[in-house]
């Protein structure tokens, strides 16, 4: 049975999904990008890859990155496939996710 509220003596059911989603803890933060594999995941919208180019250039200048992996979703309105997310999580030490427009 859904959770309920009492308002002015009237019991009503709650219309939202009151079950808390599992807590998503962020991954431990890196202290440096030296020797790390850096991933980029773009949403295919305009200007994002150019922005990623600038960020990649700046970070490559500051740190000796072991590798850079650039990936895109198939379409900005579609969820990233699980296989793509798993690839990035298994191969990268950090991933920058961007939303262009």
């Amino acid at each position: 049975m859904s959770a309920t509220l009492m308002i002015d003596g009237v019991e009503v059911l709650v219309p939202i999904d009151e079950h808390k989603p599992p807590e998503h803890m962020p991954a431990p933060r890196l202290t440096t990008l030296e020797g790390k594999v850096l991933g980029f995941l773009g949403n295919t919208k305009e200007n994002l890859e150019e922005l990623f180019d600038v960020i990649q250039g700046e970070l490559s200048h500051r740190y000796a990155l072991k590798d850079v992996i650039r990936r895109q979703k198939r379409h900005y309105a579609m969820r990233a496939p699980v296989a793509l997310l798993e690839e990035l999580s298994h191969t990268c030490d950090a991933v920058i996710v961007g939303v262009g427009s």
Partner: protein
Amino acid sequence: MQTPETLGQAVRRINAAFYERGWTDGLPIVPPTPDGVREMLAATGRGGEELIAEIPPNMGRATVEKIAVNALMAGCLPDDMPVILAAVKALAEERVGIQAIQGTTDVHAPLLIVNGPIARQLDINSGPNCFGQGWRANATIGRAIRLIMLNLGGGAPGKIDKSTFGHPGKYTYCVAENEEASPWEPLHVERGFQAADSAVTIFPCEAPHQISDHYNRSAIGIMRTICDAIATVGTTPLYRAGEALLVISPEHAEAFRSDGWRKRDVKMHVFEHARVPVGRMKYQGDWDASVATFTPRWVDLDDPHARMPILRQPDDLLVIVAGARAGRFSLFMPGWGFPTGSATVKIER
């Protein structure tokens, strides 16, 4: 025991509490009391914990009970529940792409098109003013879907829902097809269901755009007007591909019946003739690098005289007949574009 005064006060306070929590569309709701929700559930013959779908983007669990709560809030009656359950199932189909619709800056909202005997049984309007006010079933069934998208999907305006304008269909957007006035097979039969089945189609689309043609008495003449009206730079599918809906009035439909046009002929004509020269669509509207992705191989984007079809294939056009018997109009509602679209689900009683 409550007096009329305290009952009224309770209803007002419940409405205020729900509104403050962001659980409404701004209009008053029917308080979802346990007895009311039990009545809604009883009409389904299903357990309240049965999961129908998870609604993006929050992936809230649309159990039969949660659907009943939101449907009761919307003002639905127990007999409406089979339509709403089927609509929720259709809403969550991947090809509808509802996560895109929930967060878009575009105006689009899911339209429910109901076919089959249930439309008459529930008095879902397919005739006069069918996209407007006045019919309880149209108003409340469409509204139930909106509340479900809000309360279970998280599509709160200004937060997840980033629509620049919205449109009035985001309060409710539900019609029945006028199968009696149509010279063709209904939409659900076209999609493989039996005529005796009832079904609901979900199609995220814009508000209706009226196309007026009181001059032409021939089908070809009406089609010329329709194609001229929709082949514009501002039409969403021109740049983003995807589906669109043409709603033909009974008066216009009579011309198609007289001239022996099939539904396929309408779709082919729109595909062939509703086109925009590449030179006109380039560097305006929604022109960007992604246009090439949705361009058929036989359209040369380097040729300004090449003509881009509004619809990339004839079957991207949904065609139904609806509306009153008087009025020589048709309606055009573009979809959001790839990867969203329509889905049709059978209504189980």
